[in-house]
């Protein structure tokens, strides 16, 4: 058995534990608790139930828990639509990101060795600039009188401006653009670390470059594809900034719904219930992502 840990060791382990429990785990329990309260015109704007300060008596108040916020979610078709549309937009965006990122990551991984660090830096650099600003940049491009339409009209490719801005398509473009580095990086890693002799062996055994790509490179990059897709899909579902700035008034995404419930309607129990259901939806993909990450770190 291991010897007892020293004070310093216990501090090193205890500090992050305490931090995560206080600022990550407990807040979620509070979200769950408030999702079970009733909205009220008060400050804070909900009727507190199940207060831990009450000690054991709190248990007797279990009956007062209210499912009204969840009933509201179930009653209003709009919520279900927002969840579904979030899933749909996140799914489509993930596929588009993959389609765009794979050729880029592949070309990066096959570039001369001395160029690769520069290419990786170039691919990741946009991630270091403000997310908000990058989304904002697309407003000027996509608007009806924006740069894209100007360019296309000038080229004579279209006669009428395209209405991309304030639509689901703009949201997809925004997500693809913003999350591209998250997809490129795991793909690049998965392709670059494949031993080059594997492709030579495939060629030696009669596989044309195309056949070798589909039968060796692609299957071996699947862990990267999975990690990249999850890294885009999960946060995209709850995305707020992109649908808010690029989407139309009819673009339903659940992150935006939560925001509106909280800030505009001041319905904290509803916002909390939206969050709880969203989290429940994401639990599967998140567990999958964590498992792939831990397998990666372990290997």
């Amino acid at each position, binding site marked *: 058995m291991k010897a007892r*840990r020293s004070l310093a*060791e216990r*501090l*090193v382990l205890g*500090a*992050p*534990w305490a*931090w*995560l429990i206080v*600022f*990550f785990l407990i*807040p979620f329990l*509070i979200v769950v608790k*408030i999702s079970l309260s009733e909205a009220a015109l008060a400050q*804070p704007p909900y009727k507190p139930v199940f207060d831990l300060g009450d000690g054991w008596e709190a248990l007797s108040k279990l009956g007062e828990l209210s499912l009204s916020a969840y009933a509201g979610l179930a009653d209003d078709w709009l919520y279900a639509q927002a969840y579904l549309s979030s899933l749909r937009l996140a799914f489509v965006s993930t596929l588009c990101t993959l389609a*765009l990122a794979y*050729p*880029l990551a*592949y*070309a990066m991984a*096959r570039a001369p060795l001395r160029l690769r660090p520069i290419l990786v830096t170039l*691919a990741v*650099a*946009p991630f*270091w*600039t*403000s*997310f*908000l*600003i990058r989304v*904002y*940049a*697309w*407003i000027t*491009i996509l608007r009806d*009188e*924006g*740069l894209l339409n100007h360019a296309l009209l000038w080229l004579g490719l279209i006669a009428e401006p395209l209405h991309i801005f304030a639509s689901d398509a703009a949201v997809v473009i925004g997500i693809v*653009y913003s999350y*591209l580095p998250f997809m*490129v990086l795991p793909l690049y890693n998965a392709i670059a670390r494949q031993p080059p002799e594997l492709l030579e062996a495939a060629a030696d055994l009669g596989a044309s*470059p195309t056949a070798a790509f589909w039968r060796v490179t692609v299957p071996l990059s699947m862990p990267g594809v999975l990690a990249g897709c999850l890294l885009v899909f*999960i*946060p995209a*579902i*709850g*995305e*707020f*900034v992109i649908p808010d700035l690029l989407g139309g008034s009819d673009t339903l995404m659940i*992150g935006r719904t939560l*925001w509106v419930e*909280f800030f505009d309607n001041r319905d904290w129990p509803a*916002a909390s219930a939206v*969050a709880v259901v*969203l989290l429940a939806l*994401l639990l599967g993909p*998140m567990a999958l992502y964590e498992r792939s*990450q*831990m397998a990666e*770190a372990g290997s």
Partner: protein
Amino acid sequence: MSKGSHTRTLALLFGFSFLYAPIALLVIYSFNASRLVTVWGGFSTRWYVSLLENDQLIASAWMSLRVAFMSALLATVVGTCAAIALTRFGRFRGRLVFSSMIYAPLVMPEVITGLSLLLLFVALDIPRGFWTVVVAHATLGMCFVAVVVHARLVTLDRSLEEAAMDLGATPGRALMSVTLPLAAPSILAGYGLAFILSIDDLVIASFTSGPGSTTLPMRIYSQVRLGVTPEINAISTLLIAGVALVLVLGLALGLTERRQRA
């Protein structure tokens, strides 16, 4: 050379144009004399001048810098501890829960993280302001720091630490004098990452800030909602220039370091 290499060059050109064209356009139009964002009215720096007169914007930029500095510091200390625990403490009790909590915020939708932290502060009756944003950003940042530093620590040869202990260093000393110096670049990168995450964040800050602690992204967001103005292009350009400078410096530093080692 071959057909394949042409296709790959094309993929690189296309991919990087997609990544950089919007940013380039943003920068170019920040020097536009015209108020209309999409019509070029000649070169001008008037929007930069008007930035200097915008006290609110400057105040929120200052707020963002302070928040980022503090939260990244906290995140680096706690995150590095977490990385050490993950790498060096073997299978301690609750390791799976611990590492799940480290990885979860990396993909967790920001609206959930923001909402849950706000509700915590309300439940604890803590007035929202500078420190609540710092704590919220540090929570997100520490997970990124932990992952970055952990990735570096697992690649370090364990026998270096063992050699130090063999030569009479206590485990703590070996960690401080051998492992941490070797992991220093990743710790620095972790700090930079946490700093950028904080400077960038709109959603979590919107939930956890109070009156008087408006951050720069919050200010920009409220202006964007009112309509696109070249002034936002100007502040964006300044932010991009700042990040570019740091990146180039970091890259140059890394290159010279590698050259010295070679």
